[in-house]
């Protein structure tokens, strides 16, 4: 019998701790499918963040490092500089990457650090229980914006791909989503391209994935997907923001 669907080899055969309907799991799977297809598990070092995906070091079967909150791009830089022949990726949430770790993100990007950054934007601090993230939408209720995010008080959300696309060191900055089959396919292609960029020493590649947090949004998994489509995509348009040859 032909096998049409199975767990990627580089994804550990254990139960993930994510909430029902959370799309972190889909994104893990896409990264692992790419690692498997490229046959690079034995040559890959992943760096996980502090956030809901903190335990990702148990889920990816490649060698893994757990970084301090926001510092994954610096840790990945250390790994890549020490081991230039290895594939190095970070997997980070929006609070991790675009608040506490903004400095490390921007500088790894502008150095053209030859790494892959998987950026999971769910417009919320999932792990700590639903506080405002740098990506929380205007009007969005969180535990620290109980009346909805008011830009006059809390400022505006950060559009990471748009911001990073201005930097010379960025080879790829692409925003994708995991709300539908076509978008998931698109997301995988982007992740594959990011890893191929690293193989070809092209520079910094970031794939921003719009993701759901049913738990802290207070929505059912189905309604969470709908919110992603109706509210997030209009504010964070999908697409390629940078795809260029970095001229070092």
């Amino acid at each position, binding site marked *: 019998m032909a096998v049409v669907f199975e767990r990627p080899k580089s994804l550990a055969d254990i139960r993930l701790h994510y909430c029902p309907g959370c799309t972190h799991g889909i994104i893990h799977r896409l990264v692992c499918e790419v690692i498997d297809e490229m046959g690079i*598990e*034995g*040559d*890959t*070092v992943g*760096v996980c963040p502090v956030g809901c995906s*903190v*335990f990702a*070091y*148990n889920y*990816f*079967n*490649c*060698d*893994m*490092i*757990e*970084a*301090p909150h926001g*510092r994954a791009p*610096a*840790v*990945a*830089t*250390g*790994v*890549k*500089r*020490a*081991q230039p022949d*290895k594939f190095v990726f970070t997997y980070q949430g929006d609070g991790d990457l675009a608040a506490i770790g903004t*400095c*490390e993100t*921007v*500088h790894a990007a502008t150095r053209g650090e030859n790494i892959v950054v998987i950026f999971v934007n769910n417009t919320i601090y999932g792990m700590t229980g639903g506080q405002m993230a740098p990506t929380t939408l205007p009007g969005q209720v969180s535990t620290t914006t109980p009346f909805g995010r008011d830009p006059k008080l809390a400022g505006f959300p950060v559009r990471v791909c748009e911001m990073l696309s201005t930097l010379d060191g960025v080879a790829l900055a692409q925003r994708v989503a995991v709300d539908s089959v076509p978008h998931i396919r698109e997301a995988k292609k982007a992740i594959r391209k990011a890893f191929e960029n690293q193989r070809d020493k092209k520079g910094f590649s970031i794939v921003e994935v719009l993701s759901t947090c049913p738990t802290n949004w207070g929505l059912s998994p189905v309604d969470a997907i709908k919110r992603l489509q109706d509210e997030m995509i209009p504010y964070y348009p999908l697409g390629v923001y940078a795809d260029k040859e970095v001229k070092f």
Partner: protein
Amino acid sequence: MEKKLMKGNEALAEAAIRCGCKCFFGYPITPQTELSEYMAKRMNASGGVFLQAESEIAAINMVLGAASTGVRAMTSSSSPGISLKSEGISYIAGSDLPCVIINVQRGGPGLGGIQPSQADYWQATKGLGHGDFHVLVFAPSSVQEVVDMVSYAFDMADKYRMPAMLLSDGLLGQMMEPVVFPEQKSEAIEKPWAANGHKNERKHNIINSLYIEATDLENTVVERYKKYDEIKATLPDAETYMTDDAEYIITAYGATARVCKSAVNLARAEGIKAGLIRPKTLWPFPSEIIKNATENAKAILCVEMSTGQMVDDVKLAVECKKNVEFFGRTGGVIPTPAEVLAQIKKLGGIE
């Protein structure tokens, strides 16, 4: 072997490269900048990595990344920058990673000043980050010792899988002395725990400091403290100078110990039986050595370039059975031998 006249900071950098430091990550700050600049000149050419980080926070996390893959990695800074590194140092300690951190101390608190200081003793020996952990702390007092201790610090960091700090100061960093470098040394130790790609030949390695179960974390910390006990039993080191018949013994480390040695010589010239104990390891603290060497002393004078941070450890070393007095200058002021001599006389009630 060839003697070279070198500045402390540059000698330190050269020594690190020679003992196999493969990656250096730093951020400019006075008075350690020559160290980074020397690394920038030499490191890439010698097959290693020099990278100027965007901050001290990034630099220590780059060290975390590089050290995770099994290479010898180092960062250097001065006091305010070390404060920024403390989260990363705690993670490195909690992940059982070896690395070397240099603190060329300057005056504090805050932006403080850029003159030599020893006001980071507490930070280095008791509070280099959150949580239950220690780092090895070595205190050189000459440029030659800077060179020797860097190599030793890397060896001990690797052996015990923990961070090691060289607590230098602006004086040692900036002064020039003749040095002899040891033979070039390559990485000695196997690191089967390193996260450098499993090549499909082993299970994946995980570098991590998170233990969500309280008892798991407790067990890990307790295991680490067994290692610390072994270190406390074997590594403490101090130089004793004229302590055999001394009635008044100074305790001082680093650059201050040089001043105090001169003060001891001045005292001896006047017939005052003075001596000096110079801790070379600040953690583990050489308590036994101090206790034994001060057995017959009448009083002890702890001299520091701070308001008195090591003095409590000296009191504990002698179990508070001796009179331990303190003299210090701070803010970047260096005590003079004459000042220290005056303090010895005061201690002995000598006119």
